[in-house]
């Protein structure tokens, strides 16, 4: 459809040729501004790529002065026990996976209930969720730390210094974060479907797990990936819960490299940053459509 429009448009332009001056005045300058903005948007990214492939982290000679895979090799060689990069990747992936799957599961359950069932406190519950959402987790740092250190005393596996403790905190935020959005999704699924299945003798779990969840599964998947992006980029909670280098996630661990810009470590940091960022950027770009529609719903990326 849009290509057809462009073609007719092109033909029109072909007919009455725009003079170069006119082109510059109407469109050309926009391309110039666009190029300038692209340079602004790209230069820090080009910069890290350049440093990551540089020999010593020193690129005072200009971008892409040297080219080597050495920094990547060193990252994966794992000969520095204080900076177990591969372990960080593993930690990040599994903590973020469990947390995002868990939180989507929990909030989908709750959202379905809010959407379909009528019970006392339903309205109050939804409002409470929205209010809790306004309390950023940064503000609760001290309390989270205190609660986890108390847990650590009695159930060490769920407290400070444990990935499960961190997962619990992420799951705690899941209901506030995702329920309201999913509530909207479930509302778009006609209630008649539930009723028809009910008449055919389906139980409520069959309706939920086998019919409704399947209908909204694309949106659940998107929601899960967004939550994965958010959790794997979390710095602050991970930094207060985890205290040992081999427990760090990428967000916390990579910081250990950047004590000195323009050193070997700085080059390794940039190499690590590229590895950490690439999957997230790819995910983000491919989910762009959903993210932008979510943006206008009031979500702000953290």
């Amino acid at each position, binding site marked *: 459809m849009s290509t057809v429009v462009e073609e007719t448009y092109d033909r029109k332009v072909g007919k009455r040729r725009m003079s170069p001056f006119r082109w510059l005045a109407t*469109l050309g300058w926009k391309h110039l501004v666009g190029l300038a903005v692209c340079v602004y948007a790209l230069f820090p990214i080009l910069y890290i790529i350049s440093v990551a492939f540089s020999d010593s982290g020193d690129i005072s000679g200009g971008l892409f002065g040297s080219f080597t895979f050495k920094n990547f090799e060193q990252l994966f060689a794992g000969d520095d026990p204080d900076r177990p990069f591969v372990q960080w990747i593993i930690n990040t992936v599994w903590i973020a996976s469990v947390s995002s799957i868990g939180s989507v599961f929990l909030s989908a359950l709750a959202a379905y209930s809010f959407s379909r069932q009528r019970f006392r406190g339903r309205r109050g519950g939804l409002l409470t969720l929205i209010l809790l959402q306004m309390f950023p987790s940064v503000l609760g740092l001290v309390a989270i730390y205190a609660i986890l250190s108390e847990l650590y005393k009695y159930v060490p596996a769920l407290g400070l210094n444990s990935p499960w403790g961190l997962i619990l905190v992420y799951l705690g935020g899941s209901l506030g974060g995702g329920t309201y959005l999913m509530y909207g999704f479930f509302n778009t699924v006609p209630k008649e479907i539930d009723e028809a299945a009910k008449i055919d003798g389906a139980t409520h779990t069959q309706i939920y797990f086998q019919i409704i969840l399947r209908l909204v599964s694309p949106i659940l998947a998107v929601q899960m990936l967004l939550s994965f992006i958010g959790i794997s980029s979390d710095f602050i909670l991970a930094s207060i819960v985890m205290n040992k280098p081999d427990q760090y996630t990428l967000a916390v661990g990579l910081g250990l490299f950047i004590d000195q810009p323009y050193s070997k470590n700085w080059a390794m940091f940039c190499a690590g940053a590229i590895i950490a960022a690439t999957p997230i950027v790819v995910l983000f770009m491919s989910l762009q459509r959903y993210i932008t529609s979510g943006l206008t719903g009031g979500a702000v990326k953290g």
Partner: protein
Amino acid sequence: MARNTEDVTSDAKTVRLSAATRRARQRMVDDGGTPSLRGTIIKIILLGIADAAAFFVSMLLVAKHQWTYLAGVVIVTLILNFIYLRRGGLPAKYLSPGVLFLIFFSFSVVVYSAFIAFTNYGGQHNGSKEDSISSVELGAMVTDTNAPWMDVSILEDGNKHFYFLASDNMSEFAADGVTPVPHYYLGGEDFNATTGWHEITGDELSKVSYGAGLMGYDIATGYEGFTTLTIDQVTQEGAKFATLKVPLSAQIDTDGWMALDPSAAGVQRTYYDAKYDAATDSFTRLSDGTVFKADNSQGFFISESGERLNDTGWQTVVGLKNFNTIFGNEKLRAPLLKIFSWTVIFAIASVLSTFILGLALSLLFNDDRLRGKKIYRAIMILPYAFPGFLSAYVWKGMFSFEYGFINFNILGFKPGHGIPWLAEEGAAKWAILLCNLWLGFPYMFLITTGALQAIPAELTESAVIDGASAWQQLRLIKLPLLLVSLTPLLISSFAFNFNNFTIIYLITGGGPSGDPSLGVDVGGTDILISFVYKIAFSSSQGADYGLASAFSILIFFIVGGLSLIGFRRTRFLEEVTE
């Protein structure tokens, strides 16, 4: 209420049904149906796993004698079992897993933060009063230097109780003034249950066997009926014997005990210099008789002259003290106002700069004739797709002084002559705003593009027909319409930046550091939340969680109030209240 106004919505069209029909249909949905066998089995298995986990946690709590927590776990488990085992009550079945996490890790965080704000919880006050008392007593354990040092042999009886067999060659001497007249003592670790500490005299002396001591005199090395431990045995379990106490009387607290010296060759009297008295809730220092009364409002033991006995106090409710510190402390007032105003300026400047750039770009690119829009758009979104914490680290590196990418490569300064981006307050603020502009403009570009496209074309067309200039179209038509739909987003963006900890903490760490004489590090680029983090987690003065929480609560009210205004302008709340 909600039920009567409930609409049965199917996509866009709304069908209104009679109240009775709707109630009947709702009843049908609310009824769970006859459970299937497979479903029941799965349910029992899942519930079994949850119960097993709860049982495991309960056992851990029993082992630590935590009865209150145990009661909590048991009650929660019982409620969960009740919810899932009974028929009906569907909402609870769907809500309880999420609500459980919500209560323990979200709701309780809010409530607990509010509570901590009224306590003195912190590095100096992180335990109970009992913990504090025992730590004071531990610290007050002193060796009595007036008491004689005695050679010792460690004995063991048939019941695995340990004894000190001590030889005192220092208290009494023969007429020549050099040759010691030995005294021998024996005592077990429990004064009442084993042989209590006493001097060996008379007939009992015949049970003692002797050997060569370190000082050249014979010492007691064995006692009839006891096994003497060899030096190897003692050193192997050094830790155990280092804390072994042999009481001098049944009142160990007042009379003291014999304890091994570090060489494990001798013992000397040891006692508590400060003794806790539960009746008066105070410590008395035995060496000078000073009484330190428990001050429950401060969490310390304090003498009449104001001397503090302990460095580690206990956690206690201090009322409004933290809030008084924030609002009433003269010394802190100026720095706090500075932090607050920078927080507001930072948030406003971030929103405005990103919004203006984003709006300008979306106006520019909202042109059907422009080619390659998709490529421009993809490149411009990159900074937003890039994880924020990494961007902050990268910008920090680029701002570095000597060979930093910005100073050296872009601005072309010679090393050592550039702009001290991170070391000087004004430059650091610009550095942060520049980085935040880079991080934030794609978001604004995306939302303004969306909002621009939602403006009906007829409006701008009719304006063009009426002869409005491009600037007039923007100012009189587009901008007012944009602001209507975007204000809530701008407000939440403000709220987000108000607490944008990551960018401040990772780029400047709140630095450059301020006046060290203040006692708290008020950095030049600290915003409230990074300042709170410093108070709580990286203060040289010891963490003050209470004060940090008090700040958090205040920030919550500021940001929460703003967000409420923002939400009220959307249809957010209306939708929920249907």
